[in-house]
């Protein structure tokens, strides 16, 4: 039975997005227009009333397969799937098959036998979602792979900025924190440079990856310099174990040089907004009061936009697949 996408949204001046790939594995390599259309579509979803009918994917099966613990991303994908009317099943692999010694490919082929339409995968190893894409028949969404990418996070960050400021091109965006180990940073760097923003990365040299400038960004070890005139300050989480003598000497030293406080923020554009992909370490990456400053902090909006972005993405992949079959 072929499932046809209905286009019955009220107020529909927006339509599902056709992507160039049947998967969303990475932002790197995506076209500017594709990203723009996804943001437009998500914008449309974000404007809808929660009771509006968006259930175009009834009968679709979406598997949320998480090889790493996650709450916000998993719930966000789940909510997005449900709002589209799809059936969603959450599988946490960390505590099931892997422990029984099953190989990743065996797990993949078991999941494939359930004939999902979309598989959303988070995995601690960079590149694992592309391995799934090679062996499974369904569309894959990368929900974060190792230190590589977290494409839907970058999309939701872009949507958040666009809804607040109105555009991305030409904005000065400073990303600060553990760039080396961050997939969120990589996806954001790719997306924001594709969209024409000026991206600056701020981190101590121990947390700055090799040759990062070649990705089209400017690198700063001095946060004051990197944050100057910024329109957006995006902070990244720093894992506790990296703060106590390995990559940086201590929490308090990290906060002194790389934590966001009023004084450093005053160097940014006076209307600058603050973002953080969560979960935050208050007093380490960001002064607590700033995180709660509803005027400047977009942290809660980011979470809200996550659902809209994931709806647009899931819908786009199904739409793309449908069109590819019809061709």
């Amino acid at each position: 039975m072929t499932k046809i996408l209905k286009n019955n949204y009220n107020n529909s001046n927006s339509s599902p997005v056709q992507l160039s790939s049947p998967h969303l594995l990475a932002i790197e390599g995506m076209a500017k227009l594709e990203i723009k259309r996804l943001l437009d579509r998500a914008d449309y979803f974000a404007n809808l009333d929660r009771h509006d009918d968006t259930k175009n994917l009834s009968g679709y099966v979406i598997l949320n397969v998480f090889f790493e613990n996650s709450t916000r991303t998993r719930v966000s994908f789940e909510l997005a799937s449900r709002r589209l009317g799809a059936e969603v099943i959450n599988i946490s692999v960390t505590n099931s098959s892997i422990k029984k010694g099953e190989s990743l490919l065996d797990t993949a082929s078991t999941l494939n036998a359930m004939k999902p339409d979309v598989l959303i995968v988070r995995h601690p190893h960079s590149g694992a979602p592309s391995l799934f894409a090679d062996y499974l028949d369904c569309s894959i969404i990368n929900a974060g792979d190792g230190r590589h990418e977290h494409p839907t996070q970058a999309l939701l960050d872009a949507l958040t900025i666009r809804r607040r400021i109105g555009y991305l091109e030409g904005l000065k965006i400073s990303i600060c924190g553990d760039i080396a180990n961050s997939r969120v940073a990589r996806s954001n760097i790719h997306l924001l440079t594709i969209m024409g923003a000026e991206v600056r990365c701020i981190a101590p040299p121990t947390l700055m990856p090799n040759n990062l400038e070649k990705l089209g960004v400017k690198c700063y070890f001095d946060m004051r310099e990197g944050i100057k005139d910024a329109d957006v300050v995006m902070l990244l989480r720093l894992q506790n174990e990296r703060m106590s003598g390995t990559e940086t000497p201590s929490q308090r030293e990290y906060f002194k040089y790389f934590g966001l406080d009023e004084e450093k923020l005053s160097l940014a554009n006076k209307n600058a907004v603050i973002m953080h992909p969560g979960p935050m370490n208050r007093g380490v990456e960001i002064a607590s009061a700033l995180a709660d400053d509803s005027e400047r902090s977009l942290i809660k909006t980011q979470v809200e936009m996550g659902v809209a972005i994931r709806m647009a993405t899931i819908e786009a992949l199904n739409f793309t697949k449908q069109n590819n079959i019809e061709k």
Partner: protein
Amino acid sequence: MTHIIFKSIRVVNPDTNYDQISDVTVKDGKILSIIKVVNINTTNKKDNTPLYDCTGLTMAPGITDIRVNLGKSENIEAIQKIAVQNGITSMVVLPNQTPRLDNPSIIDHLHRQSENPILPFIKAYGAATKDLDGLEMAELGLMSEMGAVGFTNGNISIKNSLVMRRLMSYAAMINQPIIQHAEDPDLSGLNEASTNSIKGEMNESETSTRLGLIGIPSCAEVIIIERDIRLAELTGVHYHVAHVSTKEAVDVIRNAKKRGLKITCDTAPPYFCLNETSLLNYNTAFKLSPPLRTEDDRLAIIEGIKDGTIDAIASDHRSRSKDTKAQPFSAASIGASGIETLFLLTLELVHKNIIDLNKALAMITINPAKLLKIEAPSLKEKEDATFFIFDDRTINTITQEHMQTSPTPFDGRSVKGRVIGTFIKGRVAYIHDELNQKLIK
């Protein structure tokens, strides 16, 4: 045994710099004569002597591959059989296998297991330290008496400077080389004790940043080599660096050689054929140790081959099962097949006019044999008739599905040439139909 004649074959013997179309007669396992062909049309075939009409083919002394990982001792015969089909007539195996080659009886056992006269001759490196743990010296002298040709911890770098100094002085006393896999395990994150369990996966560069894989900086190689050169100078040992992969390492070794130190090194085809951008789709066939480096490094390796800084080319064969390779890059095993492509990729250096055939063959025959003091076949009268025959023109594509070992990092690469026969002490060890058809009885 009767005579066999190989007629009108191009004989290339790097040992004597001989390169002439010749008629080669083999008798009783030895080369009876090599006579330069003056007039190609003369037939000197008489009686029933088997004669191969080898017009257009080339004969070279058997290949000595000085870096083969067996994995397990029981794989030895299978690997020997595959090696011989690729022109290899002797191999030196690494101690990192099951069981570890860290005492004389295991080395003796390995030799006995591999005594088939029509399969490649097996030599072994002994482990430099007990259990390959880098702490206590293994029985270098006794292993040496059992035929070990050098000492190394194989795929593991000997990290401790004091241990290395002692190994070198002791090895110098028994006149044996120390072979190092040069990679600082702290910098490459391969040492368990290093900072929160980072584990190097590829070369550190823009590419590793893009892929989100943990980088091994290229200086991790040269740091160890520079230290070791100081210690080699102090102890007078013959120090050999295995699979050199970086520009800096080539520079440092070049200078050490100029100073007259007993330093040698080898590299392997991946390091002069490929660079790290091959990893861009996370293909685990390219997960090697040392990792594939940048294009600049690759060019420096080629320069080192040209100017003689790099003495030898070895296969660095480390075959891996599909199960351990069909994994996310970080979880996949390290290593790739090598014995099936060693010759073809070395020959590629000739086709690309980087070095001539004599030099290319020297790098896989007499050079590696000489530096480990292994008897090397030479195409001269009265020498053992141990050689291989190849055609250097046929264009083939290396494909994984037609190979016996996996994974190959060269899947889909077009190469020119192929081995069609291997003879060990005058006996047919491998013969392809193409050569069989040239037999005139």
